């Protein structure tokens, strides 16, 4: 091995602490990129493979009742590759271990064999045998309730209780995400999917030789709108609600939005991390090389060329960077796999395809190395630019000036060591600025990431306390007459109840349109408040329609605009309504109307889909239990449960990532300060040791070095907070999706936490450096020159 390389290895070993700190920063940058992109791409890949292997349908439609022979007509629609007719129905469940109602979507299984479309991925057990009271339960509910094959489950089939044996546990591409009827949040304990032999459902729901649900797989190149148009035309006489594609299929829409959110986070945060890491490598390596000035002069005095010296130090930097890159890749791969696994349990995919894109790898590696090379190169150029004789001499005493403090005559109030600190900062403003901005970036990352938790809190506060004031939402098994409200209104513990009507509709303005449920509320509702963009509350007008702000954006309408409303039931009524208000909301897309006006629009007065109520706190438990006995009640969600469900589902996916980022942000804070301190020590070790020789105590000497760093870090705090505010804003804008908006709010405590983490990190590195100062070799200072 050439001697220079041997020197390299030993030098690396000598600065191992710093090298590791730098490598850790590089590793964080690379790991985040690899992890996030890896997880994102793997999940997409997995979703696509899942949909394909289990033949997830492209078009869906629900109808009232169609005879079996219509199936062949569906199959003959041009562009239809396969169709599946079945029976689906919501039903209440009787689960003794639960103290509130539970429900399921019942889905029929063909009499023979597996479904052609939306196939089941059996996780355990088998499919039901023909004619037996057996069922397959969706994995989410089975796990939440602890059901295994062999368990018994009571289902209220059209009002009559019937006991089934669980024979299998399954997943389906159709129900990656399940939402209970009338609810906004998933709740695995009280809602699931049950697959039952078709004959049983035919008999129970009076659908002998008929079906009420159809799925269609398109042949390659087929036009989805065209197939939907023909399907609607065919099914309208059978009470078909408008058919829809994957984009409007609830489970798929949720999966898509989660992946979309993951993608935008991946687009914003990892590049920020990588940029910060690159900046730090650049700064740290260039200062590290600066301290090698004498060695560079010495090598040149032997006749080593600039190129040889440059290459030597470049290798030094590259070795450190390579260590970081390798660790980052390994860590990123591992974390990416782990993260994908986490998502997998959340999304409920039956298998996992882990995939990484070499281009992403290369980009992360390239940026890291480019930063290292740039930092090293500028420093080496500085050193080789000097005549060797100059380089080997200790640098001429740096020209210090009197600081502003001196000029103001305040210097006599300040001790000599403090003056040294101030003059040093004033003399090296760029260096000070670099250290400060490094620490500021750590604060920025932390503020910009912690912001997410504030956003969730804010979202919960505005959605569940300010806008929605009910304690419970009761979802009904089927659209019932207004009597259901009457039924629950009589229960003890209820303080007030209001029916809610939800009608599926397509809202359009020009070529823009959105499919969603219009919510019909009672005039003067006590349960729902609307806030405009300025934060002023307004009430539901009798006429017109109120849109949520995201919906208004998507339709490009504003207050006073007209929107076209097509009711998506068999009657297909159409109306043009004026937008009477725009309400700021963070969850979902919503449109609100006066209940009577909405009922008139559908032509079926007095229908309702859910009931919202205020409940006496002390009676809530009993009230929920009583609801179990009402067959019309499918599910109940309480505010607490909805909030925890929101935290679990919407927040969970992000929280996994954010927690990671925060940990890595702390590592960066440590890396920056530790390196700044160690380099200062090597630059000023002689000076400090000389002071020790003159009789300064270790504490006083430590103060000179660390006092300066403390000053720079403290200066970084407000700067970091400002930058973090900007990053938070960027994140909230980037994470906005159709179903979920992140409100932009940063609580004061968040700044406090971010600054505290940075200060703790900085203090930890200060302690490590202070220990070194206490061990300065005083004798060697006297014996040798710098």
């Amino acid at each position, binding site marked *: 091995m*050439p*001697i*220079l390389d*041997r*020197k390299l290895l*030993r*030098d690396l070993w*000598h600065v191992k602490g710093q090298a590791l700190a730098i490598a850790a920063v590089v590793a964080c940058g690379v790991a985040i990129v690899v992890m996030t992109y890896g997880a994102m791409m793997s999940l997409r890949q997995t979703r696509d493979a899942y949909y394909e292997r289990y033949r997830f349908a492209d078009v869906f439609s629900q109808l009232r009742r169609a005879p079996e022979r219509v199936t062949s007509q569906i199959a003959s629609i041009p562009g239809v590759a396969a169709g599946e007719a079945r029976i689906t129905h919501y039903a209440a469940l009787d689960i003794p271990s639960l103290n509130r109602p539970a429900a399921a979507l019942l889905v029929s299984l063909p009499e023979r064999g597996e479904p052609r479309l939306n196939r089941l991925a059996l996780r355990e057990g088998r499919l039901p045998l023909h004619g037996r009271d057996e069922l397959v339960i969706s994995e989410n509910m089975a796990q939440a309730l602890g059901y295994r094959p062999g368990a018994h489950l009571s289902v209220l089939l059209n009002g009559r209780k019937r006991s089934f044996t669980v024979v299998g546990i399954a997943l389906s591409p159709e129900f990656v995400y399940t939402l209970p009827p009338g609810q906004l949040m998933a709740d695995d304990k009280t809602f699931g999917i049950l697959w039952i032999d078709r004959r049983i459902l035919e008999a129970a729901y009076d659908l002998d030789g008929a079906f009420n649900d159809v799925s269609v797989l398109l042949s390659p190149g087929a036009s989805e709108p065209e197939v939907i148009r023909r399907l609607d035309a065919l099914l309208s006489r059978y009470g078909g609600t408008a058919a829809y594609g994957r984009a409007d299929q609830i489970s798929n829409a949720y999966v898509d939005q989660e992946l979309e959110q993951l993608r935008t986070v991946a687009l914003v945060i990892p590049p920020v991390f990588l940029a910060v890491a690159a900046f730090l490598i650049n700064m740290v390596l260039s200062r590290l090389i600066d301290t090698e000035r*004498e*060695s560079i*002069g*010495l*090598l*040149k*005095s*032997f*006749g*080593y*060329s*600039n190129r*040889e010296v440059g290459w030597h130090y470049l290798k030094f930097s590259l070795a450190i960077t390579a260590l970081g890159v390798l660790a980052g890749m390994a860590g990123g791969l591992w974390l990416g796999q782990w993260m994908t696994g986490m998502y997998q349990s959340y999304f409920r995919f039956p298998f996992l395809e882990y995939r990484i894109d070499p281009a992403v790898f290369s980009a992360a590696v390239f940026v890291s190395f480019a930063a290292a090379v740039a930092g090293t190169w500028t420093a080496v150029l500085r050193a080789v630019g000097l*005549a*060797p*004789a*100059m380089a*080997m001499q200790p640098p*001429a*005493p*740096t*020209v210090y000036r009197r600081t502003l403090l001196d000029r103001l005559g305040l210097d006599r109030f300040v001790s000599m060591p403090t003056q040294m600190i101030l003059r040093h900062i004033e003399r090296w403003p760029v260096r000070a600025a670099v250290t400060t901005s490094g620490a500021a970036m750590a604060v920025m990352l932390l503020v910009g990431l912690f912001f997410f938790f504030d956003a969730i809190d804010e979202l919960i506060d505005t959605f569940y306390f300010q806008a929605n004031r009910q304690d419970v939402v009761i979802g009904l098994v089927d659209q019932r007459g207004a009597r259901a409200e009457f039924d629950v209104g009589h229960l003890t513990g209820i303080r007030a109840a209001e029916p809610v009507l939800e009608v599926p509709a397509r809202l359009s303005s020009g070529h823009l349109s959105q499919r969603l449920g219009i919510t019909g509320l009672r005039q003067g509702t006590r349960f729902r408040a609307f806030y405009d963009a300025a934060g002023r509350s307004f009430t539901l007008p009798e006429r017109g329609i109120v849109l949520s702000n995201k919906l208004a954006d998507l339709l490009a309408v504003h207050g006073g605009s007209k929107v076209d409303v097509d009711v998506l039931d068999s009657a297909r009524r159409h109306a043009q309504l004026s937008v009477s208000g725009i309400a700021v909301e963070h969850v979902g897309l919503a449109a609100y109307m006066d209940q009577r006006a909405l009922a008139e629009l559908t032509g079926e007065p007095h229908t309702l889909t859910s009931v919202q109520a205020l409940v006496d706190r002390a009676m809530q438990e009993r009230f929920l239990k009583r609801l179990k006995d009402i067959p019309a009640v499918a599910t109940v969600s309480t505010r607490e449960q909805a909030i925890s469900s929101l935290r679990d589902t919407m927040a969970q996916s992000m929280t996994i990532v954010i927690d990671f980022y925060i940990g890595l942000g702390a590592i960066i804070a440590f890396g920056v300060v530790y390196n700044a301190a160690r380099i200062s020590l090597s630059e000023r070790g002689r000076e400090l040791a000389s002071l020790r020789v003159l009789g300064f105590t270790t504490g006083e000497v430590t103060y000179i070095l660390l006092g300066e760093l403390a000053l720079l870090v403290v200066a970084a705090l407000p700067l970091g907070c400002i930058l973090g505010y900007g990053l938070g804003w960027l994140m909230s804008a980037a994470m906005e999706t159709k179903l979920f908006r992140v409100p932009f709010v940063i609580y004061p405590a968040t700044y406090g936490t971010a600054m505290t983490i940075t200060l703790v990190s900085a203090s930890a590195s200060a302690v490590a450096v202070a220990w070194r100062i206490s061990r300065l070799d005083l004798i060697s200072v006297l*014996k*040798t*020159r710098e």
Partner: protein
Amino acid sequence: MHASMMEMSPPSADAHVAFHVHGLTKTYRSGEIDVQALRGIDLDIFRSEILVLLGPSGSGKSTFLNILGGLDRPTSGEALFREHNLTKMSDRELTLYRRDHVGFVFQFYNLVPSLTARENVALVTEIAANPMKASDALAIVGLEARQDHFPAQLSGGEQQRVAIARAIAKRPEILLCDEPTGALDSETGIVVLEAIERINAELGTTSVVITHNVVIAEMGNRVASFADGRIADVRANASRRSARSLRW
């Protein structure tokens, strides 16, 4: 000298002169002060002689030596190594000049602390055209037994002898020593001087030695006295004393 440079150079006017220096001045900035380190030096340095540069600190000796070694450039004047004008060489040419012809010994040794004695020598032999083996160079300074020690494990005198071994391992034509004994006690210093003396005798290396110790001047063929950036006086020693016989 590098082959191409040799071919381009005109035949030597005086084969006995290693360096021809004329009107050399050097001004540099130290902090905010202009320092006139050399104020016009004229001197010929002969092949294979030991020239001692004597003078108080700040008199310009080191600056002069650095210019001879191609470590620094003069502000004006010229310094010719044989027929090659050091003052007109590019950085690249100076690098090759140092690599092939010059050995340096510094007052503070400047060993690379992360390399052993032998490796410190090998640092130079790896890039030299016709070096001796690192262990042979260490043998010349009497350190073959300590070659695997790191600088921190060697005494000051031993470190300086490693530095000398490192300087001579490439068989340089020129050996430039800046206060080689400055940091050493007299006994150790003499061992170091003996090494320089031996190399001069055995290899015929032109040696320029800086010192402010008048006793050491007695081992030189000639002595140039520096004062205030000028040469005050050059005298030849009628009879050289061996390093062994020196005492201070």
